């Protein structure tokens, strides 16, 4: 009983402590209180991890896309999800006028509740306290519960009476119902080996992680669950470029936040289920079990993000074809093979691993080669093209981001930069009006009077900066070189009258001229920042 033991067995020890503290109460009361504590813990766990996931996703996808991702709010941008949530909470909440109000407002709730319910049977550590309830139908319960969220999506699509929402909802039904079939069938392989539906037993049976014993099952399950939670490349029902935002197009502020929570809650749930079913759950050497569990979950989620930042999405009929003509028969064959093996070698000796991986390869090649997903389209390259693309995005993970952290880090524009300001050297101006004639927009207003000696005195030199397009023709036309383009690109104002820039501001010392049409000045200008080639090239 040391500190390490406490940390190692955190959840069982906490459970023991709480039950000991509740020892004086009647059984039903302590049962109730323990249950409530568990529920509250799960709520917090899901919401916290979802926030972490949102941050993680944006950072990681950013790196895949040679960007930095959010990095301003808090250390490394960790508070960005909190800022997002606050923003969403403060937004105006509106209802489309033709919406079916009851259905409209209930939809996010129906969508989010199953995401939480799933976690009741996800074990994060062995022993009591590592799981809320060890249902003996665990995995069946998960499959059943997750179907309920379809209804929520449906209600959203119907209730908001928007055509994009409706199309999104229709796609959802088709997609979710179709992918449920291979998904459930692929679970059967695992259940056959483990001999139980209970999540805890399934984990305990995994001396060898089932991903090795069931490689094909894993692939089908993973792809199927990607489709179930609408992740790329199956993110059709909220395909931004096609149907705007799908079923939640019409949801503002907090209601959108709930859908968002549901979506990421499901992503978390799927990562957790994949971890439990195929990656050996909490088991692992050295580290405390719950940490192992969490690391594996994060790993699975990262793979989802990797896919998301690489792949284009399927079209709706190809998606259905993929489920019915590719995953479904493969899942059936997988059950056959697994059942066969379960009868022949009930304790699954290690050569089975090699056999199964081989079988997977052969089946994938067979199906890709001979079974078209739609007319004229086969996966002829067995996914090699996809793998190549993914290798490339992975390479970009280690390249230098091209992000410029703007206010702190400024790029120097070129020496001839035409900023959004004009600079006037009044001393040299002769009031000839060449700039006025050159301006395509007629926005330079010049008034002169005859001076005491020869020449003109400029009385008024106004530029309507609000209309100016900074083409530089006035600067080029100036015969005495008294007009310059400024170097600033940050001029802005809130007041309309300030957009008419007079002589005093055109000649103000904070306006730095650039060398545009003034080649004699080019030498003294700072050098332009150029985008450097990324690491690993040359």
């Amino acid at each position, binding site marked *: 009983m040391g500190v390490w033991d406490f940390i190692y067995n955190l959840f069982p020890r906490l459970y023991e402590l709480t039950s000991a503290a509740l020892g004086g109460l009647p059984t039903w009361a302590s049962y109730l209180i323990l249950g409530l504590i568990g529920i509250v813990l799960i709520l917090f766990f899901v919401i916290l991890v979802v926030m972490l996931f949102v941050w993680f996703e944006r950072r990681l996808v950013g790196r895949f896309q040679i960007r930095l991702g959010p990095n301003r709010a808090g250390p490394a941008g960790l508070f960005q999800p909190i800022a997002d949530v606050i923003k969403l909470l403060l937004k105006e909440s509106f209802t489309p006028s033709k919406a079916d109000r009851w259905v409209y407002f209930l939809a996010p709730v129906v969508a989010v509740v199953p995401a939480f319910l799933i976690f009741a049977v996800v074990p994060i550590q062995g022993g009591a306290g590592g799981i809320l309830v060890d249902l*003996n139908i665990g995995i069946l319960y998960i499959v*059943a519960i997750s179907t309920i969220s379809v209804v929520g999506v449906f209600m959203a699509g119907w209730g908001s009476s928007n055509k994009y929402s409706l199309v999104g909802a229709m796609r959802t039904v088709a997609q979710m119902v179709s992918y449920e079939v291979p998904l459930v069938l692929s679970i059967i392989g695992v259940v056959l080996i483990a001999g139980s539906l209970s999540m805890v037993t399934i984990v305990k049976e995994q001396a060898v992680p089932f991903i090795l014993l069931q490689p094909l099952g894993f692939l089908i399950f993973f792809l199927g669950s990607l489709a179930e939670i609408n992740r790329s490349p199956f993110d059709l029902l909220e395909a931004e470029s096609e149907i705007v935002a799908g079923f939640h197009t019409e949801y503002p502020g907090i209601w959108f936040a709930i859908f968002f929570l549901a979506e990421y809650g499901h992503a978390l749930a799927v990562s957790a289920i994949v971890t439990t079913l195929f990656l050996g759950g909490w088991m692992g050497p050295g580290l405390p079990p719950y940490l192992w569990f969490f690391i594996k979950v994060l790993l699975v989620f990262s793979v989802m993000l990797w896919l998301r930042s690489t792949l284009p999405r399927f079209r709706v009929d190809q998606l259905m074809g993929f489920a019915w003509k590719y995953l479904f028969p493969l899942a059936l064959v997988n059950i056959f093979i697994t059942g066969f093996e379960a009868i022949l070698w009930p304790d699954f000796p290690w050569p089975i691993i090699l056999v199964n991986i081989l079988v997977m390869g052969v089946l994938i090649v067979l199906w890709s080669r001979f079974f078209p997903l739609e007319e004229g389209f086969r996966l002829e390259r067995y996914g090699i093209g996809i793998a190549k693309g993914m290798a490339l995005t992975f390479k970009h993970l280690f390249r230098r981001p091209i992000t410029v952290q703007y206010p702190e880090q400024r790029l120097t524009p070129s020496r001839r930069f035409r900023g959004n300001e004009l600079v006037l050297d009044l001393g040299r101006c002769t009031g000839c009006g060449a700039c006025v004639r050159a301006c395509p927009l007629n926005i330079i207003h010049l008034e002169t009077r005859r001076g005491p000696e020869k020449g003109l005195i400029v009385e008024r030199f106004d530029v309507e900066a609000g209309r100016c397009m900074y083409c530089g023709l006035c600067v080029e036309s100036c015969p005495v070189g008294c007009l310059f383009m400024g170097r600033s690109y940050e001029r802005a104002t809130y007041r309309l009258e300030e957009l008419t820039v007079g002589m005093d501001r055109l000649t103000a010392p904070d306006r730095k001229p650039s060398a545009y049409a003034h080649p004699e000045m080019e030498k003294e200008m700072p050098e332009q920042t150029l985008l450097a080639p990324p690491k690993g090239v040359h």
Partner: protein
Amino acid sequence: MGVAIAFWVLAAVSVASALAVVITRDIFRAALFLVLCFLTIAGIYITLGADFLAAVQVLIYIGAISVLIIFAIMLTREAQRGSPSNRLRLPALAIGVLLLATLVFAVLVTPWNVVVPLPEAEPTTAGIAARLFDLEGGFVLPFEIVSVLLLAAAIGAIVLARDR
């Protein structure tokens, strides 16, 4: 005690939602009430100790049948016209009430051969599997027949719904 509370709540909700299904004019809402009804019935299965069946209820009735029904509603666009009652409403009501009275009467007067004391509810998954595939007194043949029925239904549905 807990089971009793759960039963009364679930029974009330299921009856109310079933009533809403047949009364509501908005057919989409009726379908949603149907989902609620199915969900509460799954709860009732749990009070009966049928955990496997409850999960299957959710999976099949909510995950498949309700979704199919909602899909059909969307496809037929009947929602605008609603789901009105026909001329037979009063006779139907009478028949329903009469049927209910008969059934309740039958339930109450029949001497049920209830096992006393009731054994604790146990996980049923393995039990159902054993019962289904028991070679003596099992249901292997019906099981196969049902599989064929499902296949026939799937093919039939595709043939019926296909665009000619």
